[in-house]
């Protein structure tokens, strides 16, 4: 997956949510901003997290966000869990 055309733009919350849903198909994702336009907060609930450590769960979300995480997203407050 490449984001070559997005080099200068800050993603919108819904774009980030869509990336996560694409990578983790059953994910319930809520994304908002807690400061400015590049400080995101995200909650992800997915059965794919079942039995995984929180570190592993967060890595799955980071993988979904790809280059966005490394370059465009200044800050991401992340909460992950499996469905109750």
């Amino acid at each position, binding site marked *: 997956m490449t984001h070559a055309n997005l080099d200068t733009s800050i993603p919108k919350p819904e774009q980030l949510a869509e990336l996560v849903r694409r990578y983790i198909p059953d994910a319930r994702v809520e994304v908002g901003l807690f400061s400015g336009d590049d400080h995101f907060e995200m909650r992800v609930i997915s059965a794919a997290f079942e039995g995984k450590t929180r570190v592993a769960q*967060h890595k799955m979300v980071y993988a979904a966000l790809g280059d966005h995480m490394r370059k465009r997203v200044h800050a*991401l407050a992340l909460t992950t869990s499996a469905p109750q």
Partner: protein
Amino acid sequence: MTDATPSDPIQQGIDNLVKANEVVLFMKGTPEFPQCGFSQRVVALLNHTAVPYAAVNVLLDPAIREGIKIYADWPTIPQLYIKGEFIGGCDIITEMAANGELEALLAPLRPAQEN
């Protein structure tokens, strides 16, 4: 847990820091003067546990700042390591402090109270 290769001196140096300290926090700034809100929060949570920890200011060394992300395969700073294991960043530590997991991990490392 890591892609560290002995031939990479940066990864080797990070590995040494992680293994030489029971509790080590890679952060922006210092515990006295954190330079990022996320680092500041983890410092506050750690200070609250009264367990001593080492802190590495990644702002002083761009090679460590980038290298630590590779070491843990984790894109953000701060990063907390306990007994050689990557525990998490700000969100995970906050969660673990709230649900008692952080205390459970750190309690055995707390120095005995004198007097």
